[in-house]
């Protein structure tokens, strides 16, 4: 199984190493996760381990809110004994393996060989023991529709010398009658942030299996409290 885990960004702080240097660290709460499903070459044409993190609330009454687990979500992690399942097993179809845990809030797949992983197995930070660096995937903070200065670090235009009402605009975006069009990929204003981002090769500073914490050097995309996928870095050297 690929070395990886799901987690939540707790926040940033700084700690000191033995030589007294201050290291900026992001604290991540990583796991414990459950393996919910295995994707196999025969059935799914690719291999992956599906992990689930944090229990989702069960509905109290008939009305199911988005924050509560629906019947399909509950059926994903445990056998509910539906009529259809009974009919199928009577017909000789083997029911799929279930994790037998609470329904999960955050479910993601880790692509890679499945060997050794079992449905229902728990994954904790300890599985990252010996890993030097990790890649962290998160959803960056949304900044809405932003101008080119914020979005692409353009310099903008001058404050005076005849510049009128375009101080924060881009300059030119293209040529003239030839080619009479814009080239693709010209950087302009638009939606910025709220986008899946991966930060690669973050050094692991500390593992704290007792509190399920992982400390990595540097920043991680997204707000504190945002969900992240952590996996061993695929960067070589």
């Amino acid at each position, binding site marked *: 199984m690929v070395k990886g885990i799901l987690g939540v960004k707790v*926040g940033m*702080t700084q*700690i*000191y190493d033995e030589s*007294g240097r201050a290291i900026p660290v992001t*604290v991540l709460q990583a796991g414990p996760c459950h393996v919910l499903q295995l994707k196999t070459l025969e059935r799914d044409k690719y291999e992956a381990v599906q992990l689930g993190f944090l229990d989702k609330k069960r509905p109290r009454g008939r009305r199911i809110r988005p924050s509560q687990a629906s019947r399909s979500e509950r059926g994903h992690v445990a056998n509910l004994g539906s009529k259809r399942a009974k009919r199928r097993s009577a017909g000789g179809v083997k029911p799929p393996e279930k994790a037998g845990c609470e329904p999960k809030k955050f479910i993601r797949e880790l692509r890679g060989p499945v060997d050794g992983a079992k449905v229902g197995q728990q994954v904790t930070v300890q599985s990252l023991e010996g890993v030097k660096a990790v890649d962290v995937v998160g959803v960056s903070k949304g900044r809405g529709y932003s101008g080119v200065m914020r979005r692409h670090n353009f310099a903008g235009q001058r404050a005076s010398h005849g510049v009128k009402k375009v101080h924060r605009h881009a300059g030119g975006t293209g040529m003239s009658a030839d080619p009479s069009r814009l080239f693709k990929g010209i950087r302009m204003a638009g939606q910025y942030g709220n986008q899946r981002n991966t930060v690669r090769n973050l050094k692991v500073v500390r593992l704290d299996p007792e509190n399920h*914490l992982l400390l990595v050097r540097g920043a991680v995309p997204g707000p504190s409290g945002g969900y992240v996928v952590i996996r061993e870095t695929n960067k070589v050297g």
Partner: protein
Amino acid sequence: MNKQALLNKVEQTCMKAEVPFFEIGDTVDVHTKILEGNKERVQIFTGTVIARSGGGTRQMFTVRRIVAGEGVERKFPLHSPRIEKIEVKRSGVVRRAKLYFLRKRVGKAVRLKERRTKQAANSR
């Protein structure tokens, strides 16, 4: 557990168990370990504490002194393992948390009135 509690737990691990007591306006000796080549030695910086800022592991304090007629300020991380010791030499009477007004003063005006506490009297 909530996020702040987890952060505090992480910070606790690299904070000094006992932080020497000193206040704004105190004249202190800060003993800093510095590396010279591959030899370690202790350097002492003496001055008045004019500010404390930040919290947790990030807490810093600023020490100001006059060297050859020029004001010198150094900012130290309170919890850094390189700060060996902070000795209080003298306490001053001050009424604010940041003594930035000292920056504008020269000569005798820099002096602070001494505050005599029981603790200080005993140690002397």
